């Protein structure tokens, strides 16, 4: 029996797997066996630069292609079931719960995969204005969005916040669960093998207390989606550049319910409506 080769838990930024630039790590839940990269403010700033580049690639892809790539995430999760369930168990889930969580994670991916090329038709419109004008409204991604994922569920919690943002064409930086970061970070491996453009999805691990305020205050983040109750401190900091801010406060039962986690209403706050006018004339 050869000596096992354990995984180093690293960040996922710009399609690469760096350690924290700070050289720091932490042991989630005080588990002395595993060191996870502890992101710094500089890691966040690097991730924002990567996400800005990723935004161009992701939002510049056709909606059909984005749908195919999200579907590929479902395929990759399916083929990595065992490994992902192991990550969830490592984060404290039972084997049965981990299996159910994988089922739900895959179901979320396929639902949002199919939504990508519908968003425009569902949220855009042609508008009957007075006068000889052709007038229509289209939706565009808000931009680079920061996500503070819930502590649990570790995988579905991340995906339920990430997928609607991606379906709207945004690039995303997620701070994954602090107590159970393993499955969230492993999503990087899923993204890396799914043609997700570099920088469209970025995953950081670290201490929420240290990083939440940095997410809220970063002036090149266009939006902020936070798991938890509305937080005056975060929203106040986010107002510095008029970030779009939403909070997501779900019960344990809701986190297990696919119907509650799949909604166009999750896409809507993080897309921008653009209305075009053009005269009609000979």
């Amino acid at each position, binding site marked *: 029996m050869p000596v096992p080769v354990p995984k180093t838990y690293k960040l996922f930024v710009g399609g690469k797997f760096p350690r924290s630039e700070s050289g720091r790590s932490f042991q989630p839940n005080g588990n002395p066996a595993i060191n996870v990269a502890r992101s710094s403010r500089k890691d966040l700033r690097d991730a924002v630069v990567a996400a800005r580049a990723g935004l161009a690639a992701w939002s510049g892809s056709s909606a059909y292609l984005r749908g195919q790539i999200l579907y590929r995430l479902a395929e990759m999760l399916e083929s990595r079931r065992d490994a992902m369930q192991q990550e969830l168990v490592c984060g404290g889930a039972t084997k049965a719960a981990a299996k159910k969580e994988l089922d739900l994670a895959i179901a979320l991916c396929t639902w949002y995969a199919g939504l990508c090329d519908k968003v425009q038709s569902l*949220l855009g*419109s042609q*508008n*009957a*204005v*007075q*006068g000889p*004008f052709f*007038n229509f*409204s289209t939706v565009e991604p808000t931009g680079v969005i920061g996500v503070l994922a819930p502590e649990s569920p570790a995988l579905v919690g991340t995906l339920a916040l990430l997928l609607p943002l991606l379906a709207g064409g945004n690039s995303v930086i997620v701070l994954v669960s602090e107590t159970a970061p393993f499955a969230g970070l492993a999503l990087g491996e899923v993204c890396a093998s799914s043609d997700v453009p570099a920088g469209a999805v970025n995953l950081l691990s670290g201490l929420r207390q240290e990083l939440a305020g940095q997410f809220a205050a970063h002036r090149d983040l*266009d939006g*902020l*989606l936070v798991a938890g*109750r*509305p*937080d*005056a*401190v*975060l*929203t*106040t900091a*986010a*107002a*510095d*550049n*008029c970030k*779009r*801010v*939403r*909070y*997501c*406060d779900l019960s344990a039962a809701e986190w297990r319910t696919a119907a*509650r986690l799949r*909604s166009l*209403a*999750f896409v*809507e*706050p993080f897309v*921008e*409506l*653009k*209305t*075009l*006018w*053009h*005269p009609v004339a000979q």
Partner: protein
Amino acid sequence: MTKTDKTDAAKAGDRELTFGGVWPYAPSPESTDHVTIAPRHELFLGGQWVKPKTGEYFATIDPATEKPLSEVALAGDKDVDAAVKAAAKAFPAWRKLSGEDRARFLFRIARILLERAREFACLETLDNGKPIKETRDVDIPLAAQHFFYHAGWADKLDLLFPGQRPEPLGVIGQVIPWNFPLLMAAWKIAPALAAGNTVVLKPAETSPLTALRLCEVFQQAGLPPGVVNVITGDGRTGAALVRHPGLAKVAFTGSTEVGKEIQRAVAGRGVELTLELGGKAAHLVFEDAALDQAVEGVVRGIFFNQGHVCCAGSRLLVQESVQELFVDKLRRRMDRIRVGNPMDKNTDMGAIHSQAQLARITEMVGVGVQSGCALYQPRCALPTKGYWFLPTMFTDVTMSHRIAREEIFGPVLSVLTFRTPEEAVEKANNTSYGLSAGIWSDKGARILWLAERMKAGVVWNNTFNRFDAASPFGGFKESGFGREGGRQGLRAYVRLAGGWLPG
């Protein structure tokens, strides 16, 4: 034809018909005998005119003459509280009313506004300083359209949000600016009421009269007491309103600076928020554009409403190959803008709205001159009383100049140039604002390519400053969030099943 005219026309390579000063326009003032203004206005609370608990009043003046028009009440914290309570009291019955009945009230309001259109146009022009031509043809008809348009949604919310069980939010606090006083009130009130909410509206300190007169329309229409409450006052009144714990949502139109303060003020309270803030719109003119039409569009873009427009086309980006020709045409067009008595039907540009705004515009134009930009203003006699500013154009402007970056909110155009479409996009988007943009070109594919890349909520192609109740309006980036008008505008006034919590 003066010598200058000849030279300019020859330089531009085309013919024009000018009469110099030979045939000046005869005065054509709109009559005001059908408009009476009470010497004092109280607060409109629970369907009644109520004296403010502060006991204080302040004057609102005609900016074209500096003469006081009336006194209006200054609402304090207690008045704000009474207004929110009146709205909260009216809410249960209003939300329970059928959509069809809510629609009928809104339809009726739209009709009465049109019946009294000229009265409102005159009153708006007197209180605001904008030309009667604009209040008559734009502000008042559009305000009426907003009520008519949203009336039709009141009983069709289930068509708009199928399967999402739309519910009203509750009491909405709305704070509006002075540049389109009645129109902004209509933009805010109509969708709120259609969706079953009740409202506390705070008009701008310097232009409260039409919003107060709108309350008379509500009374005439038989709108239930408390459904709309109007409290006048200054910044303190607005601040007290947005901080009131009884609000379910705040809707604000105004400066980006105040918008951010409001976002902070409601932070963590779970209050819905929409912000329609400032802008520094790029107006792109390509060499293949119909240049004479583009000149009209640029003039409409920056001199409409004295440039007191959040979506004003204040940055002209003209392609280098036609810069000289275009600026020349623009100069000659500016020479023919009629500035003066806003009540005159021939007037193109009226009075600057307030002394404070005049000071801000004067300061920014001073900044432009000091930083070496070339100033152009037509020669034109201005009235001796009142607040006035000439149509102004700066050339030799670069992206780093303050006049190219900061919102001036006056009739001041900064002209910059570009060579390629890529450069035009780069320059147009190089601002923290993102409200509107304009594109002039004869090539359809290029227009769509550019429109796709503009970080702006409204893109006018081969036109500018068009508005319609059916057309959603609102910004990207620091120009705010949420839309007003259209299907999407109603979204901000309903709660749907599921979804995430506001910040």
